[in-house]
């Protein structure tokens, strides 16, 4: 079992954002997490990655408990996330954005800068080559030196994905990577995701675009008002009365 979420609960004031959620991710390449707006998906990601503290429950990653650990420790264990709103580092170049994600850089230790400069330079050179490969993959190579804040929204989302790639993760948690970007870029992003799974990276994906979920995911979890209401294949989810009601119920209110 790679990821195990056990009785996880989180409330904000009186609002139960996530209530007693249990879920397990085996070795499925891509797992989806869907649900209406405000159903607690992002909150669940925050809880798994340590950005929010749990009110109750535990989280395990490849057998080790990760609940209670700092976000950076969880990230270093190989669980790397993106944010729902694109969060590039606007005043760093696209390439620097990628380079900053490489874990365990010798050059981030002050002593090495002064006592092992050659080793630091060599490592940096390797990382730059790798960054250039990733830039090719996400097709931002011509914009390598542009300030990332200047990229289009879709390009920023791709860059964020590239950054996660550079982190060399075991599992990535993507919060609506395709939201607000055009179909061409979505295809590019999907290609990158598929490449990633081929490299053995597991993907946990929040996604509103149902056809895409059906295309990509082998397994899907559905949340509604903080509760996990379904787990199974995407096709089953589309037929599940509870899931349909969760979505249509909301639609009725809206209408």
């Amino acid at each position, binding site marked *: 079992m790679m990821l195990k979420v056990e009785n996880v609960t989180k409330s904000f004031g009186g609002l139960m954002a996530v209530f007693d959620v249990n879920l397990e991710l085996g070795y499925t390449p891509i797992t989806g997490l869907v649900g209406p707006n405000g159903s607690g998906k992002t909150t669940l990601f925050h809880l798994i*990655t340590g*950005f929010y503290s749990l009110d109750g429950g535990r989280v395990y990653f490849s057998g080790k408990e990760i609940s209670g650990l*700092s*976000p*950076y420790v969880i*990230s*270093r264990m190989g669980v*790397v*996330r*993106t*944010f729902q709103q694109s*969060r590039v*580092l*606007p*005043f*760093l170049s696209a390439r*620097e954005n990628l*380079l*900053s*994600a*490489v*874990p365990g*850089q*010798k*050059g*981030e*230790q*002050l002593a090495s*800068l*002064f006592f092992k*400069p050659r080793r*630091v330079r060599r490592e*940096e050179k390797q990382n730059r080559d790798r960054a250039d490969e990733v830039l090719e993959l996400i097709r931002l190579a011509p914009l390598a030196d542009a*300030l990332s804040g200047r990229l289009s929204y879709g390009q920023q989302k791709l860059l964020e994905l590239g*950054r996660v790639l550079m*982190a060399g993760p075991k599992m990535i948690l993507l919060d609506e990577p395709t939201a607000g970007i055009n179909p061409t870029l979505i295809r590019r992003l999907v290609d990158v995701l598929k490449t990633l799974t081929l490299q053995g990276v597991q993907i946990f994906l929040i996604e509103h675009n149902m056809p895409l979920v059906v295309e990509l995911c082998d397994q899907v979890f559905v949340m509604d008002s903080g509760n996990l209401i379904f787990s199974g294949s995407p096709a089953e989810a589309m037929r599940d009365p509870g899931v349909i009601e969760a979505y249509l119920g909301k639609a009725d209110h809206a209408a």
Partner: protein
Amino acid sequence: MDYLLHTIIVALVYTVFALSLNLELGYTGLYNFGHVAFFAIGAYASALLSLAGVPVFLGMLVGVTLAGMAGALLAVPALRLTGDYFGVATLAFGEMMRLFFLNERWLTKGPMGLPGIPRPLGIHAGVSGLPLYLLLAGFLALAAFFTVYRITHSPFGRALKVVREDEFVAQALGKNVFSLKLRVVAVGSLLAGLAGALYGHYITYISPSDFTLNETILVLLCVVLGGRGTQWGPVLGAFLIIFFQEFLRFLPIPVDFGRVVAPIQGMVYGAVLIMLMLKRPAGLLPEYKV
């Protein structure tokens, strides 16, 4: 001529001071309003030791080390505070240190200050020592410049900028934000201590009134005017501000008026700083073109 040498030496001292603040303010986005405290610790520790007969360079070394350690000690609790409260905590620390130097007379002679601080290498205390002291200051400023360059133009410097731009992203990328900040404050304080020691041995007389909020504002101004987050910005800022300040002394200001000038100067610098932050936040040498 002597006056020019004097001005350059002071500008070099402020260059080191501004370079050290820039590490925190420019690269990491930490607003340290008590930076003068580390300048003061370097100056006092080195002065006291050399007055007690310790070789000057050894005294400077101890002063610099103490300043760095004090920085780390302050940072551990202060960095637990978020955002603006770090600024408040450092501001309070700066004032606390000034009061310490003012009140612990057994050690610092309080408001009387410490006269007769020796210069290193047997450099003469009077005007005749200026050229040699300029060489020494130039050498140490260069060393500080390259140290800072090595630190900022590296993966470490890049990580600092990640922290500055988005702490959440930094954490998501596995950066230990606290550790990065702690290390940068320690190094920044250490270099501020070097600037202070260099200042004390040059001026040969220090007292608590040399280390007030005014000096913090002055060095902030150097960094912000020159261009924060850049290698040359603090250097340019320090030279511009110090030369401007010394130039003011030559203006034919009546003596009576002179007494009000000092406080007015502080106000003017404060106002200029605010104007700059609003109108030209990136300074004369911006880090990036927008």
